[in-house]
């Protein structure tokens, strides 16, 4: 099987620190599979929530509830697949770069794309002095890379190449599709949770129970309640922990792939050093897109953070410099 955009990179990247070999084709295939799975999970989860809501309120209309929730989930998946890149770019305040205005950035990106064997992605610039970058899109043919003005000003050519190659690696590895779908799934659960919590606050649940008040029905409703609360509260927490754990491996892999694309690990290492020592204002972006950036837009980079979406910068630099 030939994957689009597989280019001529080796199929196996060796992690410089652990010596573990990661098969890039497997990784890409897994990202695509996981993206589908997330779409299905979104439908199933919303369906289940619909079912539970029906049990709590009016079991007779379960089919209706489940259908509506399922359709919403499917719609959400479709929107996430097709439009998440526009949403993410909008949320980050990015606008498309023109060759006249950002000749340097455009040239660097075109060069790295040639090296990576992918079509040149759409290039966006975020007007912020904080250096950062992210990639989005559904596949290498529909990918966008956004960098901040601060990044362009701060990096020399080899460093900028390193950062762009890291983002290009996310594109090639189909990380961008997976992360977009994941963001949409988590977003959907969070919105639902907030809706239901508000609904409980207004006492809609208490009202319906006192009206019907059947035998044994109460106990069933109790179990449903517990399940509902568990699903709604634990769901996002589990999803977040999963995302954090997965992101760190993803970043290491993108660093290694990026270093391979430029054949110059030092460019990315030195760029990461500059990103890590930046002390100015952070980049104001909404929570939903924060995990997509090359370095956490808000973090002060000291110590190890269990809930960090990104591995510690020093660790990433050390891995790049170990040969």
């Amino acid at each position, binding site marked *: 099987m*030939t994957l689009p955009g597989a280019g001529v990179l080796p199929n196996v990247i060796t992690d410089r620190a652990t010596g573990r070999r990661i098969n890039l084709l497997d990784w890409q295939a897994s990202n695509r599979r996981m993206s589908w799975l997330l779409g299905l999970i979104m439908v199933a989860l919303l369906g289940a929530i619909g079912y539970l809501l029906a049990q709590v309120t009016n079991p007779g209309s379960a089919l209706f509830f489940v259908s509506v929730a399922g359709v919403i989930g499917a719609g959400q998946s479709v929107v996430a697949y097709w439009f998440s890149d526009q949403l993410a770019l909008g949320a980050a305040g990015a606008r498309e770069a023109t060759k006249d205005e950002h000749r*340097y950035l455009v040239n660097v990106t075109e*060069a790295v794309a*040639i090296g990576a064997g992918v079509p040149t992605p759409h290039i966006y610039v975020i007007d912020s002095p904080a250096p950062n970058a992210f990639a989005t899109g559904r596949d290498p043919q529909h990918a966008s890379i956004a960098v901040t003005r601060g990044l362009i000003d701060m990096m*020399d*050519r080899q460093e900028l190449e390193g950062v762009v190659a890291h983002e290009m690696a996310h594109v090639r590895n189909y990380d961008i599709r997976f992360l977009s779908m994941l963001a949409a799934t988590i977003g959907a659960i969070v919105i639902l949770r907030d809706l239901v919590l508000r609904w409980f606050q207004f006492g809609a649940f208490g009202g319906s129970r006192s009206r019907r008040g059947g035998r044994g029905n109460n106990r069933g409703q109790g179990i449903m309640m517990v399940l509902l609360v568990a699903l709604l509260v634990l769901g996002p927490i589990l999803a977040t922990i999963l995302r954090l754990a997965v992101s760190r491996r993803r970043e290491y892999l993108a660093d290694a792939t990026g270093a391979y694309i430029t054949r110059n690990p030092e460019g990315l290492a030195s760029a990461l050093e500059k990103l890590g020592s930046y002390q100015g204002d952070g980049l104001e972006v909404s929570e939903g897109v924060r995990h997509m950036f090359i370095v956490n837009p808000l973090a002060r980079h000291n110590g190890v953070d269990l809930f960090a979406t990104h591995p510690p910068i020093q660790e990433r630099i050390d891995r790049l410099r170990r040969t």
Partner: protein
Amino acid sequence: MATIVVLVILAILAISAVGVYNRIISLENRFQNAWSQIDVQLKRRVDLIPNLVETVKGYAAHEKTVFEEVARSRQALMNAKSVNESAEAANQMTGALGRLFAIAENYPELKANENFKMLQEELSSVENKIAYARQFYNDAVLQFNNAIETIPGVFLAGPMSKKAAVFLEIPEAEREVPKVSFAG
């Protein structure tokens, strides 16, 4: 019974042969396409040169040797027929342009010229793209050569009359991207 076993084995062999054949062909197409990537950049550089030479002449008309050198390498590149001739001429041109830009260092007014700065950025990024395209080409050649020199491809390479392709040499100096300032 034995006939069936033989038939099954033959069928498996035939199917694998088709797979190997297709792989060799697609790898060959890949490195040939990779060459066209390099070619695009070489043409772009050829197109940029007359403009560059005109701009530099405006400030340093007497530096005739280097202009001639650039013109010669440009002519050689346009006349090149084979991959190797192109690569050779391209390396010459890289050297000639390097000397041209070194000379430009002595002319502060030229260095401040907007058009010159734009051309310098375009040319150094073309160099950069050529380096990346060449790297991509060599990777593709390596994959192709591996495919036809190892089992099972080696059994088909002869009948398909495929020979190992030649790598492009990367001049050591060229991986150093010229430092260009973009302030302002």
